[in-house]
């Protein structure tokens, strides 16, 4: 599928088998309005279905990217996958181990699983404790896991910093002494410290300038190749996704609407929402021609439309789309949730 990435022969044994799986994963949040408002309006607490019935599998050493607009549930899904949120329905598995059952179970098993999954967040200014030295930040997961003795920390930290392109002497400095790109390198050094197999990146370059973004994306690609990392990459930027993903999932109002290999999705997007997102990306190397106009904004997640949630913005919506929700169905190598595609109208 991806001739441009590391050749299959370079992949470790076991490549091709799913290590990370989501099955019918869903998460609802209850929104409590202020008491006065609840009494005045006498309405029930609101529920928001941030993620609904999401299923996918990621093979070892490969990257699934999830894209969508803000509020589509992609970050909640990322947090569900590493156990930072507990699911309302369904399950997340790493190597066949149920993430949430294991983290809630015996401490030894929970710790062993935690070592195997790590996450990198969007804001490198918020994700590093300003009062800790870099050395302590990077060594903490190793010490917490009991993988090294405190005396071994400086050597290990220096090696980790070197692997993300930072000098070892930086371990004595504090986060405020670093730029955004350098901080994201530090976050990455910490995330790979315990040699995880599964790395979740939630908009890791959205806060960075383009030249720094290129450095960080290339660093992630190198680490993935060298360490056979399996990655879930969350982004709102389809152009970025094109450089990192083997497979791409498109989310809209909490659901996957299309799941496809990268080399299928970009040349031939199926779902009208995927087409719209692609058409909306300003492309500096494009022809400069008028792009298809994009209609409307995402509906209120508190009051999602019936039927297909995308129908109010969809140029192909008909009566069926307004009442019946389309399921994610196989269409060749691609999975799409769209009546128009299924009926051959599109």
């Amino acid at each position, binding site marked *: 599928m991806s001739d441009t990435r590391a050749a299959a022969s370079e992949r470790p044994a076991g490549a091709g088998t799913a290590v990370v799986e989501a099955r019918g994963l869903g998460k609802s949040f209850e929104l409590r309005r202020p008491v006065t408002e609840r009494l005045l309006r006498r309405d029930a607490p609101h529920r928001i279905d941030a993620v609904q019935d999401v299923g996918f599998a990621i093979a070892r050493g490969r990257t699934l990217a999830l894209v969508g607009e803000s509020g589509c549930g992609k970050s909640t899904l990322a947090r569900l996958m590493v156990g930072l949120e507990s699911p309302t329905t369904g399950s997340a598995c790493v190597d066949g181990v149920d993430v949430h059952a294991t983290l809630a179970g015996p401490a030894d098993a929970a710790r062993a699983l935690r070592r195997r999954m790590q996450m990198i967040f969007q804001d490198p200014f918020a994700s590093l404790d300003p009062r800790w030295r870099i050395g302590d930040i990077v060594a903490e997961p190793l010490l917490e896991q009991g993988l090294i003795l405190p005396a071994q920390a400086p050597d290990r930290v220096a090696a980790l910093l070197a692997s993300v392109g930072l000098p070892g002497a930086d371990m004595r400095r504090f986060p405020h002494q670093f730029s955004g790109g350098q901080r994201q390198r530090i976050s990455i050094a910490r995330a790979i410290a315990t040699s995880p197999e599964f790395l979740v990146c939630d908009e890791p370059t959205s806060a960075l300038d383009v*030249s720094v*973004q290129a450095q960080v994306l290339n660093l992630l690609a190198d680490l993935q190749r060298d360490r056979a990392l399996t990655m879930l990459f969350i982004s709102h930027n389809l152009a970025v996704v094109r*450089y990192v993903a083997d497979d791409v999932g498109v989310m809209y109002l909490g659901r996957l609407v299309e799941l496809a290999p990268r080399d299928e999705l970009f040349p031939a997007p199926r779902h009208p929402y995927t087409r719209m997102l692609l058409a909306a990306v300003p492309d500096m190397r494009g022809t400069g021609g008028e792009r298809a106009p994009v209609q409307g904004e995402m509906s209120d997640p508190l009051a999602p439309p019936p039927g297909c949630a995308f129908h109010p913005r969809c140029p192909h919506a008909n009566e069926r789309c307004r009442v019946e929700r389309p399921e994610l169905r196989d269409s060749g190598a691609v999975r799409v949730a769209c009546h128009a595609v299924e009926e051959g109208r599109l």
Partner: protein
Amino acid sequence: MSGPLLEVRELRVDFPTRRGTLRALDGVSFDIAAGEILGVVGESGAGKSLTGAAIIGLVEPPGRVASGQILLEGQRIDDLPREAMRLMRGKQIGAIFQDPLTSLNPLLTIGHQLVETLRTHLPLSAAQARERAIELLRQTGLPAPEARLAQYPHEFSGGMRQRVVIALALAGEPRLIVADEPTTALDVAVQAQVIRLLRGVTQAHGASVMLITHDMGVVAETCDRVAVMYAGRIVEIGPVDQVIRHPAHPYTAGLMASVPTLSGDATRLAQIEGALPRLDEIPPGCAFHPRCPKASPRCSQERPELALVQRTRAACWWPIVDGAMP
């Protein structure tokens, strides 16, 4: 029109600190023609927002315009008294910022804010101003503008708020709009709508735009010319397709190559090694020389000025002459 609408001449902005004066802008010069959209790109800290702030007279203290001139239609505006500057903002120069909420008063309805702005700058009765407000909102593509006048900013989505801000910026019928990252806080689908709108309405009103952004795609689609800033200076300025497709400055070339795109090879992004220098560590000579693949000893000693290279002007001793981008 004889001269350019806006002329910026050798603009310098200093920030005095305890450890000496930091020069945040160092000799920035450019023009904007009537009806033209000029993009200003560069990385955080390059000085692009500060250039915009200097033009609208909103450099935050202790920063100050230390020297240089800013002329609008041939008249100096950088030395205006506070009150005259305040009146000129909105009347002659409109401003649009990244976060629409910073431009809107949360306690007043959209209608109130539009009518007040209109009547500050134009001799209109309350009823006329209301009609004009509805018309402006309609031009920005806001559905049901009459009903929307009575609503507060929090009742609008992000994209709709930015439409209201564009209507506000146009209210005084300004000759120039300074738009600082107007779409950065918006989702990509909404971004495209707002950019199209900004281009359409400014053309309809005959206003020029200075569009400050880090998004090269937005520049490619929107602007006539583009200025690339690095470490407080313009390193290249020229027609958009020339600068994007045939950049003359090695920094521009590196910057363009590092942008992920939807077309072409998706193997590995080109990257510029190193990082933008801090203001207190700007290298002598060409500020880009420590990161530049083409740097020579001259580059670390003599500072290059903007000079014509094919169809763009670049500040570089060794510009890329054929400049073909892959």
